[in-house]
């Protein structure tokens, strides 16, 4: 190890080997010369050699031979050192023309030098790993944490048990009385982080997900923030789940304030409507005996109009909620007949006051559906109202339903003006109104848009068939209760006190299907 550590110290690693070899050869030559002198002098003095010429010849011959032998010997002995030096020069990363010795060469294998070379290379790769991972981590992670703590973006790392192992300052984390850190985020209860992690645990090695508009507190509380959250999941890592939270309050809060404005506006509008609808109901009952036929008719127009007005306000509220992802439905077991019952009187009054015939056949034998009763009654009301508006005087509006597989489909049919194809295509878009209907029929163009939103939030679909001049059939399908019952029950948050048959009430969405 000590050798390895000296590697990067100057002078350069590659320079050592040639210098050392030169010195070794020089020493060999010098030692040979000294040895020769030590032999020559006693020989010359002793007179054992006949002539000086013979003496010189003998000396030169012996000297040359031994010197050559010694040089060859030294060079041979230095080979392993040369190889090690070349290997070390190579791993030091210095530029060099010397080829690094290959431990797999046959002669290395034969003379047993291979493990030695392999060791040199192995030590080198260990050192590289350390620099990339461990050591450098120790020195920079402190800074890393400092950097994270100053960022406006929240970071949270969780281990496989769902425990928070790191959270920076910007992360909405609350420490409870037991000292445990918890995320302070109000996920939609059907789309929580826990659920996603559990799903990943079950079937993925790697996963990513993004949530939008997740608040840390309910509206009205102090320091409420709304985040977009990106999560990544890596099975087996120390930090199995990593969350990045971007505070988008600046964008979402004004939108929520708009929503508040709409809610307040609706509140103001609904006040007078409450009184109008209320007293119309009271008057209708109390004056029933004394009104003549025409007056009764006029009164019913007042009732129909005020009911419509109230429906429009609901449409606006729902549409603004839907656009801001605030539309929440609570699905429970219900029957179409039962839901229609709540708007039946209103619908018949609307039809008769505009001289249409309304025929509704929603038999009790249909399977029950998973429905938000208020939402579905609004869809039915909008569809029937449209059919009344766009049919002819004295026309018939027929409402029927059929069960297919896991869905109950409601058909609202009129024999009215119908629509060409290009109108049908745009029909469910917000504020869309066909050129013709703009001129002849009152409306906002928001009704079908919100109908589609409500139905799709149930996991259902809307549809329309139309022939110009012959009439239209609007349809919507809702899931049969039995087909989604398990999922709904799993989300039961048991508010049995609410009037009605509490089957557990649920927020959004299409996720209940499939």
């Amino acid at each position, binding site marked *: 190890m000590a050798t390895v550590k000296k590697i990067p110290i100057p002078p350069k690693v590659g320079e050592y080997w040639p210098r050392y070899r030169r010195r070794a050869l020089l020493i060999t030559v010098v030692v040979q010369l000294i040895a020769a002198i030590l032999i020559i002098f006693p020989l010359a003095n002793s007179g054992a050699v006949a002539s000086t010429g013979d003496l010189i010849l003998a000396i030169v011959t012996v000297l040359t031979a031994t010197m050559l032998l010694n040089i060859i010997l030294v060079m041979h002995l230095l080979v392993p050192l040369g190889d090690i030096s070349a290997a070390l020069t190579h791993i030091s990363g210095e530029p060099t023309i010397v080829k690094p010795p290959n431990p797999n060469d046959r002669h290395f294998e034969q003379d047993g030098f291979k493990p030695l070379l392999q060791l040199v290379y192995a030590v080198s790769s260990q050192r590289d790993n350390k620099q990339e991972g461990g050591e450098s981590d120790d020195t920079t992670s402190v800074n890393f944490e400092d950097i994270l703590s100053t960022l406006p973006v929240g970071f949270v790392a969780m281990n496989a048990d769902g425990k928070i192992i790191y959270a920076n300052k910007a992360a909405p984390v609350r420490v409870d009385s037991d000292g445990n850190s918890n995320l302070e985020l*109000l996920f939609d209860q059907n789309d929580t982080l826990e659920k996603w992690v559990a799903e990943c645990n079950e079937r993925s090695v790697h996963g990513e997900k993004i949530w939008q508009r997740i608040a840390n507190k*309910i*509206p*009205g509380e102090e320091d409420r923030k709304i985040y977009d959250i990106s999560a990544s999941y890596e099975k087996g890592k120390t930090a199995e789940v990593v969350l990045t939270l971007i505070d988008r309050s600046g964008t979402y809060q004004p939108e929520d304030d708009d*929503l508040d404005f709409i*809610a*307040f506006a*609706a*509140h103001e509008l*609904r*006040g007078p*409507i*409450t*009184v109008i*609808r*209320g*007293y*119309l*109901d*009271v008057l209708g*009952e109390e004056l029933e005996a004394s009104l003549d036929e025409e007056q009764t008719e006029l009164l019913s127009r007042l009732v129909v109009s005020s009911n419509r007005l*109230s429906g429009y*306000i609901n449409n606006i*509220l729902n549409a603004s909620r839907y656009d801001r992802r*605030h539309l*929440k439905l609570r699905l429970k077991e219900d029957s179409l007949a039962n839901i229609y019952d709540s708007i039946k009187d209103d619908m018949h009054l609307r039809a008769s006051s505009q001289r249409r015939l309304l025929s509704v056949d929603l038999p009790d034998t249909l399977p029950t559906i998973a429905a938000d009763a208020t939402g579905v009654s609004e869809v039915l009301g909008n569809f029937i109202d449209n059919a009344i508006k766009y049919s002819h005087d004295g026309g018939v509006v027929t409402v029927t339903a059929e069960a297919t597989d896991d869905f109950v489909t409601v058909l609202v049919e009129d024999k009215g003006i119908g629509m060409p194809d290009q109108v049908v295509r745009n029909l469910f878009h917000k504020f869309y109104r066909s050129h013709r209907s703009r001129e002849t029929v009152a409306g906002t163009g928001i009704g079908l848009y919100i109908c589609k939103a409500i139905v799709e939030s149930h996991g259902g679909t809307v549809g329309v068939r139309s022939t110009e001049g012959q009439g239209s059939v609007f349809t919507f399908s809702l899931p049969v209760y039995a087909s989604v019952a398990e999922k709904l029950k799993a989300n039961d948050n048991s*508010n049995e*006190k*609410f*009037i009605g048959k509490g089957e557990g009430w649920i*927020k959004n969405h299409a996720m209940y299907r499939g």
Partner: protein
Amino acid sequence: MAIKTILCIEDDRFIGEMYVRSLKKAGYDVDWMVDGNDGLVAARNKPYDLILLDIMLPERRGSEILQALRGKEDLIPNTKIIVLTNFDQDEESRVAMEHNVDAYLIKAEITPKTLLKVVSALDGKAAQSGQ
């Protein structure tokens, strides 16, 4: 325990009058308060069978009244509460309120006649559960 006495906390004079008129005609004994503070005082001082509670009230909001009456402990265990509002709250706040009340109705969606039906339905429930 049949519902006999009703406290109506409602700041809109027309709406208040309308409900009180219909409820009285139906034979209930009705007190009517127009602001939140008076409403809370009345609710604490007299054991009503039913409270009709508006949310957007002057002085003290309906949610605060509910919190005061049923927040930490239920001060009025024998009283039923119907929230009557025209204010469409956000889902979270609404769910929080619904946990503590017997019904939550949008005023513009009901007429006095419907209200009477809901009250007698609550009465029916109370009778059924043998209270």
